[in-house]
């Protein structure tokens, strides 16, 4: 794996039992390959989310098969469905209960923009209440699109300054995330 001009792979001839790398690369590698999603299934998109985790599409190939229904045990909220104004505060509170680091994927037209529900009752995009990392288009997106979106999220995780976030205080974290 080549990153920023540094050879990050393990070369046993040169290094013996020692691996030389960057802390960020290791942390991000670990994080991006074990994303524990929290399925915030609010409407029809949740059906495709279920499809993505079943055998045909098999989200386990990306290390994301551990869907946790508890925000305490998950680090990526997949908002799959229509966010009504009545539901929006609950989405935010569940997001607040997730431990850092955490990410949000807005799956489908509804979660991204309100979709076809131009209505007094529907929030026009979940990004009004939670910070969204990846938007996935479609109504509903096919499972492939969700997988693609999750791979984009992995790419994003790989660019994060994880060690500085871990070692720095909360203020530093917020600065880096902004």
């Amino acid at each position: 794996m080549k990153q920023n001009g540094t050879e990050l792979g393990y070369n046993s001839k040169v290094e013996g039992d020692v691996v030389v790398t960057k802390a960020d690369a290791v942390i991000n590698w670990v994080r991006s390959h074990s994303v524990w999603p929290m399925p915030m299934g609010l409407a029809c998109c949740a059906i495709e989310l279920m499809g993505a985790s079943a055998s045909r599409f098999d989200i386990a190939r990306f290390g994301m098969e551990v869907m946790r229904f508890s925000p305490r045990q998950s680090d990526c909220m997949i908002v799959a469905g229509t966010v009504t104004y009545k539901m929006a505060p609950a989405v935010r509170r569940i997001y607040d209960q997730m431990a850092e680091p955490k990410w949000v994927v807005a799956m489908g037209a509804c979660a991204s923009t309100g979709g076809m529900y131009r209505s007094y009752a529907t929030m026009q995009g979940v990004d009004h209440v939670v910070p969204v990392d990846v938007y996935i288009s479609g109504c509903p997106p096919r499972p492939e699109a969700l997988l693609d979106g999750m791979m984009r999220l992995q790419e994003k995780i790989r660019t994060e300054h994880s060690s500085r976030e871990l070692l720095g205080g909360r203020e530093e974290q917020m600065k880096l995330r902004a």
Partner: protein
Amino acid sequence: MSAGEGVDSGPATGTGELLDSLGPRFEGLEPRPTTDHPATRCRAEFIRPLLKTLRDEYGYLMLMDVTAVDWDEESPRFTVFYHLLNPKTAQYARVSVDCLDDDEPEVPSVVSLFAAAEWHERETYDMFGIRFTDHPDLRRILMWEGYPYFPLRKEFPLAGIETELPDSEVGEATEAKVLPAPMMGGPFVAQSGQPMSASEPRGRDESWTEHHHRPEDFDALEGPEQPETLEDRSGDKPRIED
């Protein structure tokens, strides 16, 4: 609801027969214009005895729907509708009750007769603000408690009205609000930049988007040249919901 066997089509819908036998027992029972099922208008104080009679003596065992109509400027402004089904004969019947008070509409609840009415009445209350007296648990069902409007009333704009989120703490933390969503900004408008079809009664109000604000004097601009968009319901046309 296709006209099954035994249900006559056209204006002869069985309203007459039903009224002939019920009329003497319930004062103020009138036929309503209808194209499908027997339909009668009933006074609010008789709705419970009438539905009980229909259920126990005429076999209308199922309450299919309770809803309401807002007639806008007319008075009585609100009419509550009950759709009943006789499962043996596959016959439907429609009963309507006008709310006497236009500002604080009220009708007796029929939950004691049909358990199915509970959520239907809650929904009708939520959307139209019609209170069902003696309802065991008359709360909003779709919108949240504390929502200040009744969305299916005619004066409620299609796009919605700005208000606070149901949870003030989250509202403060995120600065998010309940915002109007004009149709023009949405995906279902074929001609962008044009007002929606005049056939949509409130379509004229949708000439704005989140990014282009509605002109303050929009209504004045339009004036009387605008084509009449609301069906002329106050004329001699019968009030039929079809």
